[in-house]
Protein backbone atom coordinates (compact mmCIF):
# COMPACT_ATOMS: atom_id res chain seq x y z
CA UNK A 1 0.00 0.00 0.00
CA UNK A 2 1.34 3.40 -0.89
CA UNK A 3 0.79 6.50 1.14
CA UNK A 4 1.40 8.83 -1.80
CA UNK A 5 -0.89 11.77 -2.18
CA UNK A 6 -3.45 11.23 -4.92
CA UNK A 7 -2.19 12.34 -8.33
CA UNK A 8 -5.24 14.41 -9.02
CA UNK A 9 -8.38 15.35 -7.13
CA UNK A 10 -10.55 13.30 -9.53
CA UNK A 11 -8.89 10.03 -8.62
CA UNK A 12 -9.43 10.71 -4.96
CA UNK A 13 -13.14 11.28 -5.55
CA UNK A 14 -13.70 8.23 -7.75
CA UNK A 15 -11.80 5.93 -5.42
CA UNK A 16 -12.54 6.91 -1.86
CA UNK A 17 -12.07 3.24 -0.89
CA UNK A 18 -8.32 3.64 -1.31
CA UNK A 19 -8.10 6.03 1.65
CA UNK A 20 -5.82 4.60 4.29
CA UNK A 21 -7.79 3.41 7.31
CA UNK A 22 -7.11 5.12 10.61
CA UNK A 23 -5.06 3.30 13.21
CA UNK A 24 -8.15 3.18 15.39
CA UNK A 25 -10.07 1.31 12.68
CA UNK A 26 -7.26 -1.16 12.12
CA UNK A 27 -7.10 -1.83 15.84
CA UNK A 28 -10.85 -2.36 15.97
CA UNK A 29 -10.65 -4.84 13.10
CA UNK A 30 -7.74 -6.73 14.61
CA UNK A 31 -9.66 -6.93 17.85
CA UNK A 32 -12.77 -8.20 16.09
CA UNK A 33 -10.82 -10.75 14.13
CA UNK A 34 -8.63 -12.48 16.67
CA UNK A 35 -9.09 -11.07 20.15
CA UNK A 36 -12.85 -11.49 19.83
CA UNK A 37 -12.40 -15.15 19.03
CA UNK A 38 -10.15 -15.58 22.04
CA UNK A 39 -12.56 -13.72 24.30
CA UNK A 40 -15.43 -15.76 22.88
CA UNK A 41 -13.60 -18.98 23.62
CA UNK A 42 -13.02 -17.88 27.21
CA UNK A 43 -16.68 -16.86 27.63
CA UNK A 44 -17.83 -20.16 26.13
CA UNK A 45 -15.58 -22.22 28.38
CA UNK A 46 -16.67 -20.20 31.41
CA UNK A 47 -20.36 -20.78 30.62
CA UNK A 48 -19.90 -24.50 29.95
CA UNK A 49 -17.74 -25.06 33.02
CA UNK A 50 -19.98 -23.13 35.41
CA UNK A 51 -23.02 -25.03 34.19
CA UNK A 52 -21.23 -28.35 34.63
CA UNK A 53 -20.21 -27.28 38.13
CA UNK A 54 -23.69 -25.95 38.93
CA UNK A 55 -24.10 -27.97 42.16
CA UNK A 56 -20.85 -26.45 43.51
CA UNK A 57 -21.38 -22.90 42.28
CA UNK A 58 -25.10 -22.33 42.77
CA UNK A 59 -25.82 -20.20 45.80
CA UNK A 60 -29.42 -21.48 46.12
CA UNK A 61 -31.63 -24.42 45.25
CA UNK A 62 -32.75 -24.00 41.60
CA UNK A 63 -36.25 -25.37 42.21
CA UNK A 64 -37.27 -24.27 45.73
CA UNK A 65 -37.89 -20.55 46.15
CA UNK A 66 -38.26 -18.25 49.16
CA UNK A 67 -41.61 -16.47 48.98
CA UNK A 68 -40.31 -13.40 50.80
CA UNK A 69 -37.56 -13.02 48.15
CA UNK A 70 -40.01 -12.80 45.24
CA UNK A 71 -39.27 -10.60 42.22
CA UNK A 72 -35.96 -9.15 43.40
CA UNK A 73 -34.30 -7.04 40.68
CA UNK A 74 -30.98 -7.80 38.99
CA UNK A 75 -28.09 -6.78 41.24
CA UNK A 76 -29.80 -7.54 44.57
CA UNK A 77 -27.48 -8.58 47.39
CA UNK A 78 -27.22 -12.37 47.42
CA UNK A 79 -29.28 -12.65 44.23
CA UNK A 80 -27.05 -11.11 41.55
CA UNK A 81 -29.40 -11.96 38.71
CA UNK A 82 -32.56 -11.34 40.74
CA UNK A 83 -35.35 -13.80 41.52
CA UNK A 84 -38.49 -14.96 39.73
CA UNK A 85 -42.14 -14.89 40.75
CA UNK A 86 -41.65 -17.84 43.09
CA UNK A 87 -38.61 -16.31 44.78
CA UNK A 88 -36.17 -18.68 43.08
CA UNK A 89 -32.62 -17.43 42.57
CA UNK A 90 -32.12 -16.71 38.87
CA UNK A 91 -28.36 -17.32 38.93
CA UNK A 92 -28.83 -20.82 40.34
CA UNK A 93 -31.56 -21.56 37.83
CA UNK A 94 -29.38 -20.26 34.99
CA UNK A 95 -26.49 -22.50 36.03
CA UNK A 96 -28.61 -25.63 36.37
CA UNK A 97 -30.72 -24.73 33.34
CA UNK A 98 -27.65 -24.34 31.17
CA UNK A 99 -26.89 -28.05 31.46
CA UNK A 100 -29.99 -29.02 29.50
CA UNK A 101 -29.78 -26.02 27.15
CA UNK A 102 -26.16 -26.65 26.26
CA UNK A 103 -26.86 -30.36 25.86
CA UNK A 104 -29.69 -29.64 23.44
CA UNK A 105 -27.44 -27.23 21.52
CA UNK A 106 -24.41 -29.50 21.20
CA UNK A 107 -25.85 -33.04 21.14
CA UNK A 108 -27.90 -32.68 17.92
CA UNK A 109 -24.89 -31.31 16.03
CA UNK A 110 -22.66 -34.14 17.29
CA UNK A 111 -25.29 -36.75 16.36
CA UNK A 112 -25.97 -35.11 13.01
CA UNK A 113 -22.24 -34.99 12.26
CA UNK A 114 -21.95 -38.73 12.84
CA UNK A 115 -25.12 -39.62 10.90
CA UNK A 116 -24.85 -36.93 8.21
CA UNK A 117 -21.10 -37.53 7.88
CA UNK A 118 -21.62 -41.25 7.34
CA UNK A 119 -24.43 -40.71 4.82
CA UNK A 120 -22.56 -37.96 2.96
CA UNK A 121 -19.31 -39.91 2.76
CA UNK A 122 -21.15 -43.01 1.54
CA UNK A 123 -23.03 -40.97 -1.06
CA UNK A 124 -19.91 -39.14 -2.21
CA UNK A 125 -17.66 -42.19 -2.30
CA UNK A 126 -19.95 -44.71 -3.97
CA UNK A 127 -21.72 -42.20 -6.20
CA UNK A 128 -24.29 -43.39 -8.75
CA UNK A 129 -27.58 -44.74 -7.49
CA UNK A 130 -26.54 -44.69 -3.82
CA UNK A 131 -25.72 -41.01 -4.15
CA UNK A 132 -29.01 -40.20 -5.85
CA UNK A 133 -31.11 -42.05 -3.28
CA UNK A 134 -29.33 -40.65 -0.23
CA UNK A 135 -28.92 -37.06 -1.36
CA UNK A 136 -32.35 -36.67 -2.99
CA UNK A 137 -34.15 -38.00 0.09
CA UNK A 138 -32.20 -35.64 2.31
CA UNK A 139 -33.10 -32.78 -0.05
CA UNK A 140 -36.72 -33.00 1.12
CA UNK A 141 -35.68 -31.50 4.44
CA UNK A 142 -34.46 -28.36 2.64
CA UNK A 143 -38.03 -27.71 1.47
CA UNK A 144 -38.93 -26.83 5.06
CA UNK A 145 -37.86 -23.83 7.05
CA UNK A 146 -35.53 -25.61 9.52
CA UNK A 147 -37.16 -24.49 12.74
CA UNK A 148 -40.63 -25.28 11.45
CA UNK A 149 -39.68 -28.88 10.68
CA UNK A 150 -38.14 -29.19 14.12
CA UNK A 151 -41.32 -27.80 15.68
CA UNK A 152 -43.46 -30.27 13.73
CA UNK A 153 -41.40 -33.30 14.68
CA UNK A 154 -41.05 -32.19 18.27
CA UNK A 155 -44.78 -31.52 18.58
CA UNK A 156 -45.54 -34.97 17.17
CA UNK A 157 -43.13 -36.77 19.49
CA UNK A 158 -44.38 -34.82 22.50
CA UNK A 159 -42.57 -32.59 24.98
CA UNK A 160 -39.14 -33.57 26.31
CA UNK A 161 -35.48 -32.68 25.93
CA UNK A 162 -34.72 -36.02 24.24
CA UNK A 163 -37.40 -35.31 21.62
CA UNK A 164 -35.97 -31.83 21.06
CA UNK A 165 -32.56 -33.41 20.48
CA UNK A 166 -34.07 -35.92 18.03
CA UNK A 167 -35.93 -33.29 16.01
CA UNK A 168 -32.98 -30.90 15.91
CA UNK A 169 -30.76 -33.78 14.76
CA UNK A 170 -33.13 -34.47 11.85
CA UNK A 171 -32.84 -30.82 10.81
CA UNK A 172 -29.04 -30.75 10.88
CA UNK A 173 -28.28 -34.09 9.18
CA UNK A 174 -28.94 -32.93 5.57
CA UNK A 175 -26.73 -29.80 5.51
CA UNK A 176 -23.88 -31.70 7.18
CA UNK A 177 -24.35 -34.61 4.76
CA UNK A 178 -24.09 -32.18 1.82
CA UNK A 179 -20.75 -30.86 3.05
CA UNK A 180 -19.46 -34.39 3.65
CA UNK A 181 -20.63 -35.51 0.23
CA UNK A 182 -19.00 -32.70 -1.71
CA UNK A 183 -15.76 -33.00 0.28
CA UNK A 184 -15.70 -36.76 -0.30
CA UNK A 185 -16.30 -36.37 -4.03
CA UNK A 186 -13.26 -34.10 -4.21
CA UNK A 187 -11.07 -36.56 -2.32
CA UNK A 188 -12.35 -39.55 -4.31
CA UNK A 189 -10.98 -37.99 -7.52
CA UNK A 190 -7.43 -37.95 -6.13
CA UNK A 191 -4.82 -40.26 -7.59
CA UNK A 192 -3.87 -41.84 -4.31
CA UNK A 193 -7.39 -43.20 -3.96
CA UNK A 194 -7.04 -44.69 -7.43
CA UNK A 195 -3.70 -46.15 -6.36
CA UNK A 196 -5.18 -47.64 -3.21
CA UNK A 197 -8.03 -49.16 -5.19
CA UNK A 198 -5.73 -50.71 -7.79
CA UNK A 199 -3.50 -52.15 -5.12
CA UNK A 200 -6.52 -54.01 -3.81
CA UNK A 201 -7.62 -52.04 -0.72
CA UNK A 202 -11.32 -52.48 0.02
CA UNK A 203 -13.73 -49.56 0.31
CA UNK A 204 -13.92 -49.73 4.11
CA UNK A 205 -10.18 -49.36 4.45
CA UNK A 206 -9.96 -46.56 1.88
CA UNK A 207 -12.73 -44.62 3.59
CA UNK A 208 -11.19 -45.04 7.03
CA UNK A 209 -7.57 -44.43 6.03
CA UNK A 210 -7.89 -41.80 3.31
CA UNK A 211 -11.33 -40.28 2.90
CA UNK A 212 -12.23 -39.73 6.54
CA UNK A 213 -8.90 -38.16 7.34
CA UNK A 214 -9.23 -35.67 4.50
CA UNK A 215 -12.89 -34.90 4.94
CA UNK A 216 -12.80 -34.52 8.70
CA UNK A 217 -11.37 -30.99 8.79
CA UNK A 218 -14.07 -29.52 6.57
CA UNK A 219 -16.77 -31.46 8.37
CA UNK A 220 -15.52 -30.33 11.76
CA UNK A 221 -15.39 -26.66 10.79
CA UNK A 222 -18.86 -26.77 9.27
CA UNK A 223 -20.42 -28.65 12.17
CA UNK A 224 -18.91 -26.20 14.66
CA UNK A 225 -20.55 -23.38 12.75
CA UNK A 226 -23.94 -25.06 13.21
CA UNK A 227 -23.85 -25.27 17.02
CA UNK A 228 -24.96 -21.67 17.58
CA UNK A 229 -27.94 -22.08 15.28
CA UNK A 230 -28.81 -25.39 16.89
CA UNK A 231 -28.76 -23.83 20.35
CA UNK A 232 -31.16 -21.12 19.15
CA UNK A 233 -33.48 -23.67 17.51
CA UNK A 234 -33.45 -26.01 20.51
CA UNK A 235 -34.13 -23.20 22.95
CA UNK A 236 -36.85 -21.96 20.61
CA UNK A 237 -38.57 -25.35 20.80
CA UNK A 238 -38.20 -25.24 24.54
CA UNK A 239 -39.59 -21.70 24.57
CA UNK A 240 -42.70 -23.07 22.84
CA UNK A 241 -43.14 -25.55 25.69
CA UNK A 242 -41.80 -28.57 23.81
CA UNK A 243 -38.95 -29.20 26.24
CA UNK A 244 -38.86 -29.58 30.00
CA UNK A 245 -41.82 -29.42 32.36
CA UNK A 246 -41.88 -27.02 35.29
CA UNK A 247 -40.15 -26.61 37.70
CA UNK A 248 -37.07 -27.94 35.86
CA UNK A 249 -34.87 -25.01 34.83
CA UNK A 250 -33.90 -24.65 31.15
CA UNK A 251 -33.03 -21.36 29.40
CA UNK A 252 -35.62 -21.37 26.63
CA UNK A 253 -38.46 -22.46 28.88
CA UNK A 254 -37.45 -20.00 31.61
CA UNK A 255 -37.74 -17.24 29.04
CA UNK A 256 -41.26 -18.45 28.27
CA UNK A 257 -42.22 -18.42 31.98
CA UNK A 258 -40.67 -15.05 32.67
CA UNK A 259 -42.28 -13.37 29.65
CA UNK A 260 -45.50 -12.99 31.62
CA UNK A 261 -43.59 -10.80 34.07
CA UNK A 262 -42.33 -8.37 31.45
CA UNK A 263 -44.66 -5.57 32.55
CA UNK A 264 -43.69 -5.72 36.22
CA UNK A 265 -40.21 -7.21 36.21
CA UNK A 266 -38.71 -6.44 32.81
CA UNK A 267 -34.93 -6.71 33.31
CA UNK A 268 -34.96 -10.16 34.91
CA UNK A 269 -37.08 -11.41 32.02
CA UNK A 270 -34.22 -10.79 29.64
CA UNK A 271 -31.56 -12.78 31.53
CA UNK A 272 -32.11 -16.34 30.14
CA UNK A 273 -32.13 -15.03 26.56
CA UNK A 274 -28.89 -13.18 27.20
CA UNK A 275 -27.25 -16.50 28.06
CA UNK A 276 -28.62 -18.18 24.94
CA UNK A 277 -27.35 -15.27 22.87
CA UNK A 278 -23.92 -15.09 24.56
CA UNK A 279 -23.36 -18.80 24.11
CA UNK A 280 -24.49 -18.82 20.50
CA UNK A 281 -22.46 -15.70 19.69
CA UNK A 282 -19.32 -17.15 21.32
CA UNK A 283 -19.66 -20.40 19.40
CA UNK A 284 -20.10 -18.47 16.15
CA UNK A 285 -17.04 -16.30 16.80
CA UNK A 286 -14.91 -19.31 17.65
CA UNK A 287 -16.10 -21.22 14.59
CA UNK A 288 -15.50 -18.17 12.40
CA UNK A 289 -11.88 -18.01 13.57
CA UNK A 290 -11.60 -21.77 13.06
CA UNK A 291 -12.75 -21.57 9.47
CA UNK A 292 -10.45 -18.59 8.78
CA UNK A 293 -7.54 -20.55 10.15
CA UNK A 294 -8.59 -23.56 8.12
CA UNK A 295 -8.84 -21.53 4.91
CA UNK A 296 -5.47 -19.90 5.52
CA UNK A 297 -3.87 -23.32 5.94
CA UNK A 298 -4.99 -24.44 2.48
Amino acid at each position, binding site marked *: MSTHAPVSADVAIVRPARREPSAWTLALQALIRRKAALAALIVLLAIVLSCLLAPLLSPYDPVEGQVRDRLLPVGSAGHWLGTDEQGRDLLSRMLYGGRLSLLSGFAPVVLATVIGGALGIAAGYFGGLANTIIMRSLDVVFSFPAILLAIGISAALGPGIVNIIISATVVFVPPIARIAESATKEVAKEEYIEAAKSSGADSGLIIRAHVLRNVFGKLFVFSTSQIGGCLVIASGLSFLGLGVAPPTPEWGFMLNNLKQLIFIHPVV*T*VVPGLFIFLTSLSVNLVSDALSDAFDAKR
Partner: protein
Amino acid sequence: MGSFIWKRLLLMIPTLLGVTIVVFLMLKIVPGDPVNALVPTDATEAEREAVRARLGLDQPIFVQYANWLARVVRGDLGDSLVRRLPVADLLLPALQNTLLLAITAAIVSFAVALAVGVYSAYYPKSSLAATFNALSLAGIGLPNFWVALILIGVFSVALGWLPSAGMKSAGGGSFADIIRHLILPVAATVLSTVGVMTRMVRSTVSGILQQDHIFVLRAKGISPTKVLLHVLRNGMPTILNVAGLQFGYLLGGSVLVETVFSWPGVGQVIYQTIGQRDFPVVQAGVLIIAIAFVGINLIVDAAHAALDPRVRRV
Protein backbone atom coordinates in the same frame (compact mmCIF):
# COMPACT_ATOMS: atom_id res chain seq x y z
CA MET B 1 -38.11 -18.13 -20.06
CA GLY B 2 -41.57 -19.70 -20.32
CA SER B 3 -40.16 -23.18 -20.75
CA PHE B 4 -37.85 -22.60 -17.82
CA ILE B 5 -40.82 -21.85 -15.57
CA TRP B 6 -42.64 -24.95 -16.83
CA LYS B 7 -39.60 -27.07 -16.05
CA ARG B 8 -39.37 -25.60 -12.57
CA LEU B 9 -43.08 -26.22 -12.01
CA LEU B 10 -42.61 -29.86 -13.00
CA LEU B 11 -39.63 -30.13 -10.67
CA MET B 12 -41.84 -28.85 -7.87
CA ILE B 13 -43.94 -32.01 -8.03
CA PRO B 14 -41.34 -34.34 -6.48
CA THR B 15 -40.49 -31.62 -3.95
CA LEU B 16 -44.12 -31.25 -2.89
CA LEU B 17 -44.52 -35.04 -2.75
CA GLY B 18 -41.50 -35.20 -0.46
CA VAL B 19 -42.92 -32.44 1.71
CA THR B 20 -46.30 -34.15 2.01
CA ILE B 21 -44.65 -37.49 2.84
CA VAL B 22 -42.66 -35.90 5.67
CA VAL B 23 -45.73 -34.07 7.00
CA PHE B 24 -47.81 -37.24 6.76
CA LEU B 25 -45.17 -39.21 8.65
CA MET B 26 -45.24 -36.59 11.42
CA LEU B 27 -48.74 -37.72 12.29
CA LYS B 28 -47.56 -41.33 12.28
CA ILE B 29 -44.82 -40.75 14.84
CA VAL B 30 -47.27 -39.37 17.40
CA PRO B 31 -46.91 -41.87 20.24
CA GLY B 32 -49.97 -43.83 21.38
CA ASP B 33 -52.94 -45.25 19.49
CA PRO B 34 -54.96 -42.46 17.81
CA VAL B 35 -58.10 -44.53 18.37
CA ASN B 36 -57.78 -44.02 22.14
CA ALA B 37 -58.74 -40.37 21.75
CA LEU B 38 -61.93 -41.25 19.87
CA VAL B 39 -63.49 -44.15 21.79
CA PRO B 40 -64.67 -44.42 25.40
CA THR B 41 -62.18 -46.13 27.71
CA ASP B 42 -64.46 -49.18 28.15
CA ALA B 43 -64.83 -49.79 24.38
CA THR B 44 -64.48 -53.40 23.29
CA GLU B 45 -61.83 -54.53 20.84
CA ALA B 46 -64.53 -54.91 18.15
CA GLU B 47 -65.67 -51.31 18.61
CA ARG B 48 -62.07 -50.15 18.39
CA GLU B 49 -61.58 -52.14 15.18
CA ALA B 50 -64.71 -50.52 13.75
CA VAL B 51 -63.35 -47.00 14.41
CA ARG B 52 -60.00 -48.02 12.97
CA ALA B 53 -61.67 -49.32 9.78
CA ARG B 54 -63.83 -46.20 9.49
CA LEU B 55 -60.73 -43.98 9.63
CA GLY B 56 -58.82 -46.24 7.25
CA LEU B 57 -56.18 -46.92 9.90
CA ASP B 58 -56.32 -50.68 9.13
CA GLN B 59 -54.96 -50.06 5.63
CA PRO B 60 -51.29 -50.27 4.63
CA ILE B 61 -49.44 -47.03 5.30
CA PHE B 62 -48.99 -46.03 1.63
CA VAL B 63 -52.74 -46.41 1.06
CA GLN B 64 -53.34 -44.20 4.09
CA TYR B 65 -50.89 -41.67 2.62
CA ALA B 66 -52.61 -41.72 -0.77
CA ASN B 67 -56.02 -41.20 0.83
CA TRP B 68 -54.71 -38.38 2.98
CA LEU B 69 -52.99 -36.75 0.00
CA ALA B 70 -56.15 -37.00 -2.09
CA ARG B 71 -58.04 -35.11 0.63
CA VAL B 72 -55.29 -32.50 1.05
CA VAL B 73 -55.19 -31.80 -2.69
CA ARG B 74 -58.92 -31.10 -2.55
CA GLY B 75 -58.30 -28.59 0.25
CA ASP B 76 -59.56 -30.86 3.03
CA LEU B 77 -56.96 -30.62 5.79
CA GLY B 78 -59.07 -32.50 8.34
CA ASP B 79 -60.86 -31.21 11.42
CA SER B 80 -59.48 -29.66 14.56
CA LEU B 81 -59.87 -32.12 17.44
CA VAL B 82 -60.42 -29.37 19.98
CA ARG B 83 -62.38 -26.69 18.13
CA ARG B 84 -64.47 -29.04 15.95
CA LEU B 85 -63.78 -26.81 12.93
CA PRO B 86 -62.26 -27.63 9.55
CA VAL B 87 -58.53 -26.93 9.91
CA ALA B 88 -58.54 -24.93 6.67
CA ASP B 89 -61.06 -22.43 8.15
CA LEU B 90 -58.70 -21.91 11.06
CA LEU B 91 -55.48 -21.64 9.10
CA LEU B 92 -56.22 -19.78 5.88
CA PRO B 93 -57.13 -16.44 7.51
CA ALA B 94 -54.08 -16.88 9.74
CA LEU B 95 -51.88 -17.49 6.68
CA GLN B 96 -52.71 -14.00 5.37
CA ASN B 97 -51.52 -12.44 8.61
CA THR B 98 -48.36 -14.55 8.62
CA LEU B 99 -47.56 -13.55 5.04
CA LEU B 100 -48.21 -9.89 5.85
CA LEU B 101 -45.66 -10.08 8.66
CA ALA B 102 -43.15 -12.22 6.76
CA ILE B 103 -43.27 -10.27 3.50
CA THR B 104 -42.96 -6.90 5.25
CA ALA B 105 -40.03 -8.25 7.25
CA ALA B 106 -38.46 -9.70 4.10
CA ILE B 107 -38.67 -6.38 2.27
CA VAL B 108 -37.23 -4.39 5.19
CA SER B 109 -34.53 -6.97 5.73
CA PHE B 110 -33.62 -6.99 2.04
CA ALA B 111 -33.41 -3.18 1.89
CA VAL B 112 -31.30 -2.90 5.04
CA ALA B 113 -28.99 -5.74 4.00
CA LEU B 114 -28.52 -4.25 0.55
CA ALA B 115 -27.71 -0.76 1.85
CA VAL B 116 -25.41 -1.91 4.64
CA GLY B 117 -23.81 -4.69 2.60
CA VAL B 118 -23.02 -2.45 -0.37
CA TYR B 119 -21.65 0.28 1.89
CA SER B 120 -19.41 -2.21 3.72
CA ALA B 121 -18.14 -3.63 0.43
CA TYR B 122 -17.37 -0.16 -0.96
CA TYR B 123 -15.63 1.10 2.17
CA PRO B 124 -14.29 -2.08 3.81
CA LYS B 125 -11.73 -0.21 5.90
CA SER B 126 -14.09 2.36 7.41
CA SER B 127 -14.94 2.09 11.07
CA LEU B 128 -18.64 2.11 10.21
CA ALA B 129 -18.13 -1.02 8.10
CA ALA B 130 -16.23 -2.65 10.96
CA THR B 131 -19.10 -1.84 13.28
CA PHE B 132 -21.65 -3.22 10.81
CA ASN B 133 -19.52 -6.32 10.46
CA ALA B 134 -19.46 -6.91 14.20
CA LEU B 135 -23.21 -6.25 14.47
CA SER B 136 -24.09 -8.60 11.64
CA LEU B 137 -21.94 -11.33 13.14
CA ALA B 138 -23.71 -10.82 16.47
CA GLY B 139 -27.08 -10.83 14.72
CA ILE B 140 -26.54 -14.36 13.45
CA GLY B 141 -26.80 -15.87 16.91
CA LEU B 142 -29.69 -13.69 17.99
CA PRO B 143 -32.77 -15.69 19.09
CA ASN B 144 -35.74 -13.83 17.60
CA PHE B 145 -38.04 -14.63 20.53
CA TRP B 146 -35.57 -12.95 22.88
CA VAL B 147 -35.23 -9.86 20.67
CA ALA B 148 -39.01 -9.74 20.62
CA LEU B 149 -39.16 -9.65 24.42
CA ILE B 150 -36.49 -6.94 24.61
CA LEU B 151 -38.36 -4.81 22.07
CA ILE B 152 -41.55 -5.17 24.10
CA GLY B 153 -39.64 -4.27 27.26
CA VAL B 154 -38.20 -1.13 25.70
CA PHE B 155 -40.87 0.17 23.33
CA SER B 156 -44.06 -1.03 25.00
CA VAL B 157 -43.25 -1.20 28.71
CA ALA B 158 -40.60 1.46 29.26
CA LEU B 159 -41.46 3.99 26.55
CA GLY B 160 -45.08 3.06 25.90
CA TRP B 161 -44.75 3.97 22.23
CA LEU B 162 -45.99 0.83 20.53
CA PRO B 163 -48.50 -1.93 21.29
CA SER B 164 -47.04 -5.21 22.58
CA ALA B 165 -49.63 -7.66 21.28
CA GLY B 166 -52.12 -8.42 18.55
CA MET B 167 -52.69 -6.99 15.11
CA LYS B 168 -55.40 -4.40 15.79
CA SER B 169 -56.52 -2.31 18.74
CA ALA B 170 -59.99 -2.98 20.10
CA GLY B 171 -62.32 -1.16 17.72
CA GLY B 172 -59.34 -0.29 15.53
CA GLY B 173 -58.15 -1.91 12.36
CA SER B 174 -57.29 1.09 10.21
CA PHE B 175 -54.19 0.92 8.06
CA ALA B 176 -52.20 3.09 10.48
CA ASP B 177 -53.31 0.94 13.42
CA ILE B 178 -52.12 -2.26 11.73
CA ILE B 179 -48.80 -0.61 10.84
CA ARG B 180 -48.30 0.37 14.49
CA HIS B 181 -48.87 -3.24 15.53
CA LEU B 182 -46.61 -4.47 12.76
CA ILE B 183 -43.51 -2.46 13.70
CA LEU B 184 -42.24 -4.49 16.66
CA PRO B 185 -42.83 -7.99 15.19
CA VAL B 186 -41.17 -6.89 11.95
CA ALA B 187 -38.25 -5.35 13.86
CA ALA B 188 -37.74 -8.55 15.89
CA THR B 189 -37.80 -10.67 12.74
CA VAL B 190 -35.51 -8.36 10.78
CA LEU B 191 -32.93 -7.98 13.57
CA SER B 192 -32.49 -11.73 13.83
CA THR B 193 -32.23 -12.38 10.07
CA VAL B 194 -30.57 -9.35 8.56
CA GLY B 195 -27.06 -10.30 9.74
CA VAL B 196 -26.71 -13.30 7.43
CA MET B 197 -28.09 -11.35 4.46
CA THR B 198 -25.79 -8.39 5.06
CA ARG B 199 -22.70 -10.58 5.18
CA MET B 200 -23.76 -12.28 1.97
CA VAL B 201 -24.39 -8.99 0.15
CA ARG B 202 -21.05 -7.63 1.33
CA SER B 203 -19.03 -10.64 0.18
CA THR B 204 -20.87 -10.81 -3.17
CA VAL B 205 -20.44 -7.11 -3.90
CA SER B 206 -16.80 -6.98 -2.82
CA GLY B 207 -16.10 -9.96 -5.07
CA ILE B 208 -17.62 -8.14 -8.03
CA LEU B 209 -15.76 -4.89 -7.23
CA GLN B 210 -12.48 -6.75 -7.73
CA GLN B 211 -13.41 -7.96 -11.20
CA ASP B 212 -11.74 -6.53 -14.28
CA HIS B 213 -14.85 -5.22 -15.98
CA ILE B 214 -15.59 -2.94 -13.02
CA PHE B 215 -12.01 -1.70 -13.17
CA VAL B 216 -12.47 -0.93 -16.85
CA LEU B 217 -15.76 0.88 -16.23
CA ARG B 218 -14.08 3.03 -13.62
CA ALA B 219 -11.08 3.63 -15.89
CA LYS B 220 -13.46 4.84 -18.58
CA GLY B 221 -14.64 7.45 -16.13
CA ILE B 222 -18.23 6.26 -15.83
CA SER B 223 -20.03 7.87 -12.90
CA PRO B 224 -19.96 5.92 -9.60
CA THR B 225 -23.76 5.62 -9.66
CA LYS B 226 -23.67 3.84 -13.02
CA VAL B 227 -20.87 1.60 -11.83
CA LEU B 228 -23.01 0.69 -8.83
CA LEU B 229 -25.85 -0.28 -11.17
CA HIS B 230 -23.49 -2.64 -13.00
CA VAL B 231 -22.36 -4.12 -9.70
CA LEU B 232 -25.90 -4.66 -8.49
CA ARG B 233 -26.99 -6.22 -11.74
CA ASN B 234 -24.15 -8.71 -11.44
CA GLY B 235 -24.71 -9.45 -7.79
CA MET B 236 -28.49 -9.60 -7.75
CA PRO B 237 -28.93 -13.28 -8.72
CA THR B 238 -26.76 -14.44 -5.81
CA ILE B 239 -28.32 -11.98 -3.41
CA LEU B 240 -31.85 -13.00 -4.44
CA ASN B 241 -31.01 -16.65 -3.87
CA VAL B 242 -29.92 -15.97 -0.33
CA ALA B 243 -32.96 -13.79 0.19
CA GLY B 244 -35.15 -16.75 -0.79
CA LEU B 245 -33.49 -19.00 1.76
CA GLN B 246 -33.78 -16.27 4.37
CA PHE B 247 -37.48 -16.04 3.64
CA GLY B 248 -37.82 -19.64 4.75
CA TYR B 249 -36.06 -18.78 7.96
CA LEU B 250 -38.39 -15.82 8.34
CA LEU B 251 -41.50 -17.95 7.85
CA GLY B 252 -40.27 -20.60 10.27
CA GLY B 253 -39.18 -18.03 12.81
CA SER B 254 -42.61 -16.44 12.60
CA VAL B 255 -43.95 -19.23 14.84
CA LEU B 256 -41.82 -17.87 17.68
CA VAL B 257 -42.23 -14.16 16.93
CA GLU B 258 -46.00 -14.49 16.52
CA THR B 259 -46.18 -16.33 19.82
CA VAL B 260 -44.47 -13.50 21.69
CA PHE B 261 -46.55 -10.77 20.05
CA SER B 262 -49.84 -12.74 19.94
CA TRP B 263 -49.86 -11.99 16.21
CA PRO B 264 -52.87 -13.89 14.81
CA GLY B 265 -50.93 -15.94 12.24
CA VAL B 266 -50.23 -19.58 11.50
CA GLY B 267 -47.39 -19.63 14.03
CA GLN B 268 -49.66 -18.46 16.82
CA VAL B 269 -52.23 -21.12 15.86
CA ILE B 270 -49.50 -23.79 15.85
CA TYR B 271 -48.31 -22.67 19.29
CA GLN B 272 -51.80 -22.78 20.79
CA THR B 273 -52.63 -26.16 19.30
CA ILE B 274 -49.33 -27.74 20.37
CA GLY B 275 -50.38 -27.06 23.95
CA GLN B 276 -53.79 -28.67 23.36
CA ARG B 277 -52.24 -31.63 21.50
CA ASP B 278 -54.58 -30.80 18.61
CA PHE B 279 -52.22 -32.41 16.17
CA PRO B 280 -54.16 -32.19 12.87
CA VAL B 281 -53.91 -28.39 13.14
CA VAL B 282 -50.17 -28.45 13.88
CA GLN B 283 -49.62 -30.80 10.95
CA ALA B 284 -51.64 -28.67 8.56
CA GLY B 285 -49.92 -25.49 9.78
CA VAL B 286 -46.51 -27.00 9.07
CA LEU B 287 -47.73 -28.14 5.64
CA ILE B 288 -49.12 -24.73 4.72
CA ILE B 289 -45.95 -22.87 5.66
CA ALA B 290 -43.77 -25.44 3.86
CA ILE B 291 -45.88 -25.04 0.70
CA ALA B 292 -45.66 -21.25 0.98
CA PHE B 293 -41.88 -21.64 1.26
CA VAL B 294 -41.71 -23.87 -1.83
CA GLY B 295 -43.84 -21.32 -3.71
CA ILE B 296 -41.61 -18.41 -2.67
CA ASN B 297 -38.56 -20.33 -3.81
CA LEU B 298 -40.19 -20.83 -7.20
CA ILE B 299 -40.74 -17.09 -7.50
CA VAL B 300 -37.14 -16.43 -6.48
CA ASP B 301 -35.91 -18.94 -9.06
CA ALA B 302 -38.01 -17.28 -11.75
CA ALA B 303 -36.59 -13.88 -10.79
CA HIS B 304 -33.13 -15.41 -10.82
CA ALA B 305 -33.71 -16.72 -14.34
CA ALA B 306 -35.05 -13.38 -15.48
CA LEU B 307 -31.90 -11.65 -14.24
CA ASP B 308 -29.35 -14.26 -15.24
CA PRO B 309 -29.71 -15.79 -18.72
CA ARG B 310 -27.23 -18.58 -17.88
CA VAL B 311 -29.74 -20.13 -15.47
CA ARG B 312 -32.42 -20.44 -18.17
CA ARG B 313 -30.32 -22.89 -20.16
CA VAL B 314 -30.45 -25.55 -17.42
